[in-house]
């Protein structure tokens, strides 16, 4: 087999080599050598991005499963499988990220025997474990179909209602509990982001992100695989996204008013700049864009609005986990390049696995059999162009 040297393959190789070097530093020289975390900043970029953003970006899975299987919205059927795949990979990679961040990852199984039910982290851990298992079973039919195993598919279909309800229940708990983690830090987290409503906001924004992420990922894979894109699906998702953004924005506004900090927010300050950036990207710009019918009906417009809102919610998670602590700590935290490189390696692995899965498994609906020839043209790394968004 001849492997062609393309730009994205070289980028992929460089990311992997740097990532493996950082992995070596992490496990043979310790957390201090690989990161800029300190006693004052015990949670750094890996918690802020890999964990908080990673789980948030995997929300497409439960959102689409909810829409299609729970609410029976038949028209979105074509996006369920890729969304479930993305979420499943997202959770697997989130666990990999956790193995980098935990100081003693070899004891991660202690969660199962030394349980502390008062700990939000315990809830997070249990949800990750069980939900990843549920997602594994949601993903399995792809493999069985490919292998043409009829009986196990029947079994899975029998327990599907349990998987669906269980999966959404666990997602609700898990997405919100990532926000609950910060409830115990009222004196440390900046008032712009510390609110008793954090768990609700984390869940609410996850729903919006789930929709935006599905638009983003459908558009990207259509481009990369030369597939035909169903505009009607995107338009529906875009409409739902607009509603979700409005709901989130109004609740955030209500929270600011309720806590009486509107005056502080409009005054320029270090935190205010980051809050403005977050609010502009997650709410103002995408809502403004999606308010135009022209944008709501165009694939490019929907894509743009979704990507901007994704950046906005990523900014939100980083504000909650990093920026919001800088005033308390009294100095800035800037991740070391090795921290970034581990994250990049994990993301690149995700894109690679997605491309492999799409190539070998019936992830996209059957109408694709017609598009088969175009898929053959592009070999394994056909998903690589998506890497241009690896920094998301």
């Amino acid at each position, binding site marked *: 087999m001849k492997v062609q040297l393309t730009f994205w393959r070289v980028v992929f190789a460089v990311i992997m080599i740097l990532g493996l070097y950082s992995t070596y530093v992490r496990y043979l020289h*310790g*957390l201090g050598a690989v990161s800029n975390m300190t006693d004052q900043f015990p949670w750094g970029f890996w918690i802020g991005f890999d964990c908080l953003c990673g789980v948030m970006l995997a929300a497409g899975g439960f959102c689409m499963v909810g829409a299609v299987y729970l609410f029976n919205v038949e028209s979105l059927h074509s996006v369920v499988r890729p969304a479930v795949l993305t979420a499943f990979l997202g959770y697997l990679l989130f666990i990999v990220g956790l193995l980098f961040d935990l100081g003693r990852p070899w004891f991660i199984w202690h969660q199962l025997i030394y349980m502390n039910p008062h*700990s939000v982290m315990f809830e997070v851990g249990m949800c990750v474990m069980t939900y990843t298992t549920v997602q594994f079973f949601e993903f399995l039919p792809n493999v069985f179909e490919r292998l043409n195993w009829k009986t196990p598919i029947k079994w899975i279909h029998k327990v599907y209602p349990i998987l669906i309800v269980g999966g959404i229940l666990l997602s609700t708990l898990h997405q919100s509990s990532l926000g609950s983690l910060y*409830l115990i830090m009222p004196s440390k987290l900046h008032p712009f982001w510390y609110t008793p409503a954090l768990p609700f906001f984390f869940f609410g924004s996850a729903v919006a992100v789930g929709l935006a992420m599905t638009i983003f990922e459908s558009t990207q894979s259509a481009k990369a695989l030369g597939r035909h894109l169903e505009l009607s699906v995107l338009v529906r998702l875009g409409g739902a996204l607009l509603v979700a953004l409005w709901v989130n924005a109004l609740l955030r506004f209500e929270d600011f008013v309720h806590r009486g900090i509107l005056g502080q927010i409009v005054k320029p300050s270090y935190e205010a700049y980051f809050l403005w950036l977050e609010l502009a990207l997650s709410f103002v710009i995408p809502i403004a864009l999606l308010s135009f019918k022209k944008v709501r009906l165009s694939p490019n417009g929907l894509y743009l609005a979704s990507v901007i809102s994704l950046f906005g919610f990523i900014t939100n998670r980083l504000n909650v986990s990093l920026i919001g602590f800088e005033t308390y700590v009294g100095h800035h935290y800037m991740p070391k390049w090795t921290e970034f490189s581990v994250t990049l390696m994990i993301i690149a692995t995700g894109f690679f696995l997605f491309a492999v899965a799409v190539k070998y498994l019936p992830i996209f609906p059957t109408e694709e059999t017609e598009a088969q020839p175009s898929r053959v043209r592009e070999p394994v790394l056909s998903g690589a162009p998506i890497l241009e968004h690896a920094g998301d």
Partner: protein
Amino acid sequence: MLERSLPEPIHFMSKALLYDSTMCIGCKQCEQACATQNNLPYNDAVAAEDRQSEHKYTVVLTKNEKFMRRLCMHCESPACASVCPVGAFHKTKEGPVVYDVWKCIGCRYCMAACAFSQPKYEWESLNPRVRKCIMCPDRVTAGKQTACAEICPTGATKFGDRDDLIREARERIAQNPSTYLNRIYGLHEVGGTCVLILAGVKVEDFGYPTSAKIGDTPMPEYTGRVMERVPDFIPVWSLVLGGIYWISHRREEVAAAEAQEKEKKNGGAR
């Protein structure tokens, strides 16, 4: 598996430390005794370090010729113990908040959650531990005082029953109101702590969080309010989701059945 409410904070009978900064002469013997007790290196270089770290559990700070000790406050309701997913921290009935290293998975939630930022980490270690003052639990359970209190030449750090120490602190303030600020730091902060501080200056100038900021609420309550809803939320939300599933699929079934019926009728008509 999930208990409904947080454990009642232990309020009485517990041991405590009273640190009176007006009596402190900054000799740093407590630092040295602490290091010896915990098998940590102590030399001039360590003595000169003016912050706590994984090898320095307590520090005597100097500012404008005033001294101030810092150490783990041993909260009545410790945040570290409530947030730890594997329960590696727990409050003993004698007062010390202790750490079981063999349970720890290294998530560092204790460090993030502590209002006093006391837990420190062995960042350079390949099998890192969380480090902080554990109030000499072996000595305390054996009925002895902590190493720092025992060595203190002026009695600035005093070990005893929490209630007795509170009484004594009040007396000292009453007898010398000009020397002291009328305040015992740790009496109510985050629901009360087992380290009590008397001072003539503001403890906040030495890095302690202000009382207003950390408040009197025991830290575990902030997450407890949400966590205690989880056992109710799970069955209710499952029912709601299951109900939605049933309704939306029932509609489909009905539609299918109706279609079948129609077909039958049409067939019959033909």
